[in-house]
């Protein structure tokens, strides 16, 4: 159990000294995952709502695919993005491999299906309740989509948080497309993996504790914001 004791003291020391390397790694982690969540939400939420609302040929196939892609292994996504972005790949000319942008792209691919699938479930329940009234009022499909997203906003936060959780915690995709380059693409999860392989377990565990704390803080912040909004009334 000395590992755990060491880990806590290491974590505490890292945070207390405001370790420069550590804050750089944490900042990059947050930057990559928050950007990925933002982009994935902009794509995933309307797609999920559209899947709930519209009836079109091939819809059920799409629903099954989106649901299946919720659980894609990050390493596979990483590999696909690696092949696409590598020098010989179709997007090689942009020179994005081993940059934070490549990591964001990989994470967007990873969590968009998750956010879309969860959003679809929320929206479908809501639409079941609203459909007749909306048709009675003469709502257009686009207006219905907007109203559904707005009215389901509290439930959709959960979908977005699930996306954030998956993005901040995954290591496979960012490791492959980012390369874990010090000061460039090193994030918390890849650092942990590296420290473990170096046998530096206390430092790895310390980083892990900080990662968990950040996750809890983000979720707590959202919970507080959401609680305050619930009590008040939105216009």
């Amino acid at each position: 159990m000395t590992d755990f004791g060491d880990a806590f003291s290491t974590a505490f020391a890292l945070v207390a000294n405001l370790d420069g390397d550590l804050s750089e790694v944490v900042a990059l982690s947050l930057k990559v995952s928050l950007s990925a969540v933002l982009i994935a939400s902009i794509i995933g939420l309307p797609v999920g709502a559209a899947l709930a609302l519209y009836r079109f040929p091939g819809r059920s196939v799409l629903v099954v695919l989106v649901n299946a892609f919720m659980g894609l292994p990050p390493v596979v996504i990483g590999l696909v993005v690696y092949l696409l972005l590598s020098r010989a790949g179709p997007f090689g000319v942009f020179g994005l491999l081993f940059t934070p942008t490549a990591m964001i792209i990989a994470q967007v691919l990873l969590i968009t299906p998750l956010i879309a699938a969860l959003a679809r479930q929320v929206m479908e329940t809501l639409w079941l309740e609203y459909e007749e009234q909306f048709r009675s009022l003469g709502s257009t499909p686009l207006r219905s989509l907007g109203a559904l997203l707005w009215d389901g906003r509290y439930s959709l936060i959960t979908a977005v948080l699930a996306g954030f959780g998956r993005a901040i915690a995954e290591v496979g995709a960012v490791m492959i497309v980012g390369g874990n380059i010090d000061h460039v693409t090193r994030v918390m999860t890849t650092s942990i993996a590296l420290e473990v392989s170096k046998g530096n377990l206390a430092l790895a565990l310390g980083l892990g504790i900080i990662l968990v704390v950040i996750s809890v803080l983000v979720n707590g912040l959202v919970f507080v914001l959401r609680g305050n909004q619930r009590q008040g009334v939105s216009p």
Partner: protein
Amino acid sequence: MINADAPTILPLKLKDISLEIGGHRLLKDISCRFEASEISIIIGPNGAGKSLLLRLCHGLLSPSAGNICWLGACGRDPADFQAMVFQRPVLLRRSVSANIDFALSLRKVPKRRRCDLIEEALRRAGLYRFAKTSARVLSFGEQQRLALARSWALRPQVLFLDEPTASIDPAATHVIEEVIMAMREQGTKIIMSTHDLGQARRLADEVLFVHRGRLIEKSNAAAFFVEPRNDLAQAFLRGELLWWQRRELTPP
């Protein structure tokens, strides 16, 4: 667009309407005509097809056979001139006034006119003090009054109500009936289903009795409540239980 002054889309003509869902014929050969500015009340036992009939008239369902025709529509979209209040109020997760504002914006009412319409509708339904409250925290009766206020604000020519006062207390029922009468005064055609025979007596100008998917009787309310022509309707008025299979009816 508010339709108070536009020429009426009525009368509504139903010709040989049938509705089949999943191999079951739920409505059978219904033909009738709804004239302007009367309250038509549809009564009948559970599962008779009252709600389906309302939804067909409103255009939420399409008939499997027969046709529905708004004789006064003259090329206009009849849906723009109708509103419906459902048995369970469907409200957005927004404030009370935002609920009405949303409906008005869907009907393309200009923003500057909406405020007055919202205030008037809320006062009429006795909900003005709740304008900024979240609609979801209202009681069931208040929610139904809000659903009705929303329809009021739209100034429809025809208002459909599907058992609007089922599971609502007498006080809220009274407010709802008052608003319905006020809408009638303003020239709105009311087509409403109800379980409540007392309510039918209070409101109806004409009564439609539906049983097992068929329109059994359609007559003037005064005449109907004195003596329905049909024996099933007579039994229903006496408060007898109508069974799916026709049984021996107690002589009056």
